[in-house]
């Protein structure tokens, strides 16, 4: 990086391991967002194990009231809070360290962060108070506490402010000429994620603000249910595509960090990110495939044409990322047979194993089930069954969360400048978590194929479920327990490293 950065005096450092510049303001907010992300991950994870042990008929841990309350808590904390906090951290890292630039504004970053924290706490308190058992989708006419909606709106506004700070940092970096050529691919992907985040947040505002007004008593009628669902999924699904974009960016980054891989073709990879921006919003129509309010032509156009262009983008990345690793490994001499390079990869490095398992679980399990369930005709036998959570646990948890875990194994030594304890445990953690999620997602999918509904406390109330369905629900409980152990291991290792880890300031991080 030959260009000169635009850092203020004494407001930057050079990473002892990567040689990348680190803006100290950005470093503070990366830490703050990452810590909050892990806290909300823990809250969501506790909800997850309670749910997994409730869906297992032999255990059925929670009663109905707390089941639906926990579904709400789990969905909101995992799909919104953990992901959004971590993504803002990723954005701040990308726009400063990778562009050799300072963060645009400390004040703006504070504003966004405080709003996100206050909003998230407000929503979680509203859920625990028991007046917001509306589950994550909060479909009207289900009515939650006004604090629930207001909290979500604050989180959305805080995230939007963080995204604006990101865009303004891109602007000053370009203006000050802090980097040569075009944006690095990882920053390009993060920018695509930021653009999609704006689209998602605007949909959220349109859906949630009138719903909040209704919950306050300012509107006599709730928003139209069909309209709400249409707009809400512009938030609900599109925000998951922010995850996908950020996850793919993390794949490219971890591939480079762990194996020295370089993108095979910049133009193709960037085009794939553009496909996400253009078509992913239309793909959210697959949530409405059994809704009577929209026509078949609309459904089929959006899900069997536009959605495939977004899927094509994932397939491009799904090829170019492992191909770049293979290319790098073959260049090092690992050329034996078809898969000699794959066996020679640094599987003991949790950054690599988390990234590659994330790629496999996302592509093979999440991708294949997603395209199939998004087909209108097939959706009719899968909608509202446990197959749907089986799909998105493979994408968001096995994919995004696992990739973010892999990145954390570098964020802590490089940004927090602390070393991990119990490194052998860290090496097996991605396998524990990944295998648990894979078992759970598969079991959910097969249980759904047996007709087990999603989001139902007692699916076997009339003892109507087959033995196969019960077996699969046991698999959900066992896989969920294994994943929870893996996740708890990750949190304990990370918290121990952040607060008590050996400092590595002034020297490179200890290699994985």
């Amino acid at each position: 990086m030959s260009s000169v950065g635009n850092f203020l005096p004494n407001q930057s450092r050079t990473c002892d391991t990567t040689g990348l510049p680190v803006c100290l303001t950005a470093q503070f907010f990366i830490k703050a967002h990452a810590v909050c992300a892990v806290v909300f991950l823990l809250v969501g994870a506790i909800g997850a194990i309670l749910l997994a042990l409730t869906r297992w008929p032999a255990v059925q841990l929670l009663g109905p009231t707390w089941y639906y309350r926990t579904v709400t808590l789990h969905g909101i904390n995992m799909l919104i809070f953990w992901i959004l906090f971590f993504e803002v951290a990723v954005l701040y890292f990308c726009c400063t360290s990778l562009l050799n630039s300072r963060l645009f504004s400390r004040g703006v970053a504070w504003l966004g962060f405080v709003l996100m924290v206050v909003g998230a706490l407000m929503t979680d308190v509203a859920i625990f108070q028991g007046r917001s058992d509306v589950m994550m989708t909060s479909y009207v006419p289900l009515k939650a506490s006004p604090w629930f909606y207001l909290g979500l709106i604050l989180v959305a506004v805080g995230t939007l402010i963080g995204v604006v700070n990101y865009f303004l940092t891109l602007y000053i970096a370009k203006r000050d000429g802090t980097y040569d050529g075009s944006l690095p691919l990882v920053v390009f992907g993060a920018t695509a994620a930021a653009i999609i985040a704006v689209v998602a947040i605007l949909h959220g505002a349109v859906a949630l603000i009138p719903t909040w007004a209704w919950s306050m008593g300012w509107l006599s009628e709730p928003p139209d249910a069909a309209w709400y669902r249409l707009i809400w999924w512009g938030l609900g699904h599109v925000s998951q595509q922010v995850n996908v974009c950020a996850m793919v960016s993390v794949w490219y980054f971890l591939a480079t960090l762990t194996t020295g891989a370089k993108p095979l073709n910049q133009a193709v990879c960037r085009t794939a990110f553009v496909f996400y921006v253009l078509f992913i919003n239309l793909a959210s129509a697959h949530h409405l495939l059994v809704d009577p309010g929209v026509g078949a032509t609309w459904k089929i156009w959006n899900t069997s044409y536009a959605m495939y262009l977004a899927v094509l983008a994932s397939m491009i990345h799904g090829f170019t990322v492992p191909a770049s690793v293979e290319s790098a490994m073959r260049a090092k001499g690992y050329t034996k047979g078809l898969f000699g390079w794959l066996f020679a990869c640094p599987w003991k490095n949790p950054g690599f194993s988390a990234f590659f398992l994330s790629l496999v679980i996302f592509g093979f399990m999440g991708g294949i089930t997603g395209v199939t369930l998004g087909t209108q005709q097939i959706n009719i036998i899968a909608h509202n069954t446990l197959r749907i959570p089986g799909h998105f646990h493979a994408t968001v948890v096995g994919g995004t969360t696992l990739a973010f875990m892999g990145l954390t194994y570098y964020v802590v030594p490089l940004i927090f400048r602390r070393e991990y304890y119990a490194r052998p445990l860290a090496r097996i953690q991605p396998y524990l978590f990944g295998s648990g999620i894979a078992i759970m997602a598969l079991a959910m999918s097969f249980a759904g194929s047996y007709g087990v509904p999603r989001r139902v406390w007692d699916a076997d109330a009339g003892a109507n479920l087959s033995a196969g369905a019960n077996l699969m629900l046991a698999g959900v409980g066992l896989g969920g327990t294994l994943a929870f152990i893996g996740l708890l291991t990750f949190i304990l290792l990370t918290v121990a490293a952040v607060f008590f880890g050996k400092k590595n300031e002034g020297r490179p991080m200890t290699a994985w």
Partner: protein
Amino acid sequence: MTEPTPEPSASQPEGAGPTEETTRPASEGKGQHPEEVLSAAAALQQEGADSHHTPGTVALTFIFLLCFAVYYFANWKALADVWHVR
């Protein structure tokens, strides 16, 4: 900057793997620079070699397509079993 990745020597037979001295990943050694971590941003602005030889990834792609085809058509079969068209 990223350390140059050593090419297999001309005398090294295809598939023999790297020699210990030249290509053992630096990340195996405690306390060393993880070799590829250096200057990640610069690496991400570059492209790989001009010609790519990635038969393993191509094979993985075909395995993926096979899995997709089996799952997709199994679902159409399941649909046909419950939704009879007369």
